[in-house]
């Protein structure tokens, strides 16, 4: 395939799956400038890796793999964030460039932003309806390990956000 066709195919692919890139950037970067830089870095890595993509896994799985690998290995300094245990504490944290999102979504993002880099990756894949097998493939751990980690993450998020869901 010549470069022009490859580029056309790649552009179409990115256009369809750019939601994944934006979600990963939103979870790993709190400022819009960092998000923009990380999104560009992810697209560059995708473009570099695309010629060797053999279609052995789903395209979305491959995009997730590249996006998470890029975001997690990013060396930008991230301030250590204290663990949040209650919804009231979460509400007190000032929002960072989240204008336009409703309160529930902002709180969910805030709660996720308190998780570790690995936990963020796992919950992101889980919320995007990826199976345990796919999560295990992207992260590189066993399905049982995915299961153990998910129980822990859901419990942490659940305890913090539970009052939000109570009628």
């Amino acid at each position, binding site marked *: 395939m010549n470069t022009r066709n490859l*580029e056309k195919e790649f*552009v179409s692919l990115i*256009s369809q799956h750019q939601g994944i890139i934006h979600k990963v950037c939103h979870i790993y970067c709190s400022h819009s400038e960092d998000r923009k830089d990380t999104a560009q870095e992810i697209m560059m890595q995708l473009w570099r890796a695309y010629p060797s993509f053999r279609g052995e896994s789903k395209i979305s799985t491959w995009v997730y793999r*590249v996006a998470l690998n890029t975001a997690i290995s990013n060396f930008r300094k991230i301030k250590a964030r204290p663990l949040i245990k209650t919804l009231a504490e979460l509400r007190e944290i000032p929002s960072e460039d989240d204008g336009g999102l409703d309160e529930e979504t902002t709180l*969910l993002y805030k709660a996720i932003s308190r998780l570790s880099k*690995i936990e963020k990756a796992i919950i992101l894949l889980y919320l995007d309806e990826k199976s345990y097998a796919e999560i295990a493939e992207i992260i590189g751990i*066993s*399905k*049982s390990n995915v299961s153990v980690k998910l129980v822990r993450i859901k419990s942490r998020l659940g305890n913090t*956000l539970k009052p939000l869901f109570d009628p």
Partner: protein
Amino acid sequence: MNEVKDMVPDKLKTIWQNSDRAVSSRNRLDETAISHWIKRNSATSLSNLSRDSLLEAGLLLIVLAHLDAGIVLRSGGWKLLLLTGVLNLLFAFFIAVLFRQFRITNRIKLGDRNLRETLTDLTEVLKGNLVWLKRVSLFGPVGFLCGVPVCFKVMLDVDVFMDGKGLAIAACFTAVLIAAYYPVHNLIVRLQYSNPIKDLEDCLKELQEPERGREGRPGSDRQN
């Protein structure tokens, strides 16, 4: 507790799916923008290097070009030419460091491996680079030592040091500079690399944690 766990994920997924639309539509790029971006970024692989490194290299090149041109125009003699030679050598060394950074950036392909393999690979590469930078930093004091006598001779010729006291102060300062170069350079390199390496190692440790304790435990695979 179980009630919380069972109820929350569904609700979380609902919120997530709603946010998905909002986040994606707010940042959406059209195909022309993506195409334009690819052309701009694939045109030069130098963009893989940090902007600061390129700026430093550019400034150093301008300074050296001016120095070379000045020497040629004023014909300052072989001593000045030797000094320029040493500076050019240091510049070549700096370029070698940049070239290595460039090679490392290109070596790490983030699309071929899963997260655990990528983190392992990256940690090894960074550790290797740390060792390499520590080794090559030994050349810094050598470069200074080569350049200093020539520099002093030139300064004495043009009468920069008014008396012996000034010369003694300059000599002490130079000695401190040469002695301090290696430890200070190593400290800077360590500060620059130790945090990312620690960060990567922490991630790897977290990935392996429950797996070690649960190896061989039956019935732990639970599909969603």
